[in-house]
């Protein structure tokens, strides 16, 4: 599979998610529809997983190099977080936000198609490549879901109250996400030492990874203080914007001209 076949997979997945979401929402009134709704949504994710496997096989290298490729992983992992939260904590609403975000990232890929390029530069040929990138992707996905849960809580209960479950979900997902960010940061430093000679060079991507980490570190400490729970939800809702800069916004900043972290095909 290549990017040529991608639109078929993406549209099919989005259609499954949309139908599954609609059926599942109808299940609020008719409980019998809940399971078919969930199955349809899972089918959407299954289509994307299958596409990713075949894409990987065709590409002869891990599809983790370009932004388009990371968006593909994102679109697969974020609904998974929604499904797991439902499975573990019986919270049903998060998955809708998750599939909307997944559909959004697939749409970005549909609108700006990536170049299909099998080459992998020597700096990326390392045992650190997969752990470093996957750990970061999982971290980003958890924090995106945390942000979605925070927005849900803020929008559904504008005056506070009623949002305790949502607050707990966004909080726990942020803690988990922070763990993965920390792993990603240290793995990145250890890899940088092997590939580029030093573990930290204040490359723009490194700096933004540090800023994101500090922002969530700030959340952990704000949470330990007596700061209003609602303010903390605002914090989590907005903190994700910093991650977005770190993920792809950094490429558009003046500092990025000389970044060693640019793996995008021209």
């Amino acid at each position, binding site marked *: 599979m290549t990017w040529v076949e991608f639109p078929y997979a993406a549209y099919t997945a989005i259609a499954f998610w949309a139908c599954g979401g609609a059926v599942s929402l109808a299940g609020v009134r008719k409980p019998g529809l809940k399971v078919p709704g969930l199955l349809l949504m899972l089918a959407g994710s299954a289509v994307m997983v299958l596409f990713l496997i075949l894409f990987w096989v065709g590409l002869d290298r891990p599809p983790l190099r370009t932004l388009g490729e990371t968006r593909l992983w994102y679109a697969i992992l974020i609904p998974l977080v929604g499904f797991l939260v439902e499975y573990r904590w019986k919270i049903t609403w998060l998955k809708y936000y998750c599939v909307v975000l997944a559909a959004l990232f697939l749409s970005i890929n549909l609108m700006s198609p990536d170049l299909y390029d*099998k080459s*992998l530069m020597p700096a990326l040929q390392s045992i650190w490549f997969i752990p470093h990138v996957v750990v970061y992707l999982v971290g980003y996905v958890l924090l995106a879901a945390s942000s979605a849960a925070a927005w849900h809580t803020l929008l559904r209960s504008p005056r506070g109250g009623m949002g305790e479950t949502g607050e707990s979900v966004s909080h726990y997902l942020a803690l988990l996400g922070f*763990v993965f960010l920390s792993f990603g940061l240290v793995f990145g430093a250890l890899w940088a030492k*092997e590939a580029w*000679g030093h573990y*930290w060079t204040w490359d723009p991507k490194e700096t933004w990874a540090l800023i994101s980490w*500090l922002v969530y570190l700030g959340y952990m400490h704000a949470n330990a*203080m007596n700061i209003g729970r609602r303010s903390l939800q605002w914090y989590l809702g907005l903190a994700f914007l910093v991650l977005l800069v770190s993920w792809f916004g950094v490429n558009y900043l003046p*500092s990025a001209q000389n970044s060693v972290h640019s793996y995008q095909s021209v």
Partner: protein
Amino acid sequence: MSYYEKNGGVAVWSFRESILFTAILLLSGLVLELLGGGNGVSLPSWPLNAIWLSGIVSGIVIAGIWGRQHWFIAWLGGIPLGLSLIFALAFLSFFGGVLPQEQGVGSEWVLRFRFNQVFSSWPFALVVLFFMINLGLSLVWKLVPFRRSNLQFILFHAGFWIALTCGLFGASDLQRVIIPLYEGEASSRGYHAGTKRTVDLPFSLHLNDFEMEEYAPQLGLYDPSRDRLEAESSNAVLQVDKGVKASWPELQVEVETYFPHALKDPQGKPVPSDTLAGTPYAFIRGTFKGKPFSGWVSTGSPHEEPVFIVLDRKLLVLIPGSAKKYRSEVMIRDERDNPRQVLLEVNRPVSINGWKLYQMGYDVEAGRWSKLSLVEGVRDPWLPAVYTGFFMILIGNVLFFWKGMKKTRVL
């Protein structure tokens, strides 16, 4: 001040004072930078940096143990100040993440306040110093008296403290040297990337061979008037091989023959040759605006002109493949003249006499015909300490993850 709150029976300053203090810290840093002409802070090298660091550590430990009951010390090691300093670090890093961090790059006010090298500026140094004190004090309080339940806190915070402090204080002892090596020649000298100062090394390197593998060349349609490659219909980087097809508007092509390494015979026809001398050639057959055409294309090399096919105002070209692997076969001789044969490759550094050697680059113009290999030598005596910090963070992180999973009933 009216913002006192009770914390373990001790009255302390609170968040508002912390924010004010951090703002004063940042402003003082900016003023110092302005007065100093934007020259920033440079820490002394060994052994002075170690002496300074020992002094700071002793101060933190003494203040932490004997000053614990004092409201000011309690505030200095508390979360409100810690949180303010975290935000200040993020704020300063924001400048570092947006503005290019290079010497002499930026507008006048950027240079004056050293926002172009913010991570060695006075505001950054002051914030980090108080961050070290804040984090250090909180650590002392978790360490004395020691409780097993504090282990995760200690590992994570101490790991971060050690990595940050040793990384910053050790920066002045870090040496990064570029060592240019030519095939068949030896060298025991390099130069600093920034200052270009020559450095004598405690070993010599003899480059036996530099070799490079490339990905297959790429077929492209070049538009000279716009100096760009036209996107192929499948939006793919087309690695050339026999039978590969490609299409652009009004143009369809197929690779009929592909020689990864070829030389021209006396009649000008490419024939396969040995790897070292040959250049990639491909015979293309296709149709342009409905008319058939065919011809050879070649990437060219330092010894041969490239060959392309002219299609109206555009050119069908063969673009050299990007680097797949490059490595240097090097004979290292240490101070006692002991020889050691090594292979330097990207992501596979080699250690010698406290130095680490990296395959850094080559003569890009010459590509795989390069006779020059750039090796980087790095000496970082503080690395073991920084790595100790990293591994403590990792273990602390695993414990945090495990505890979190248990607490949230995921496991």
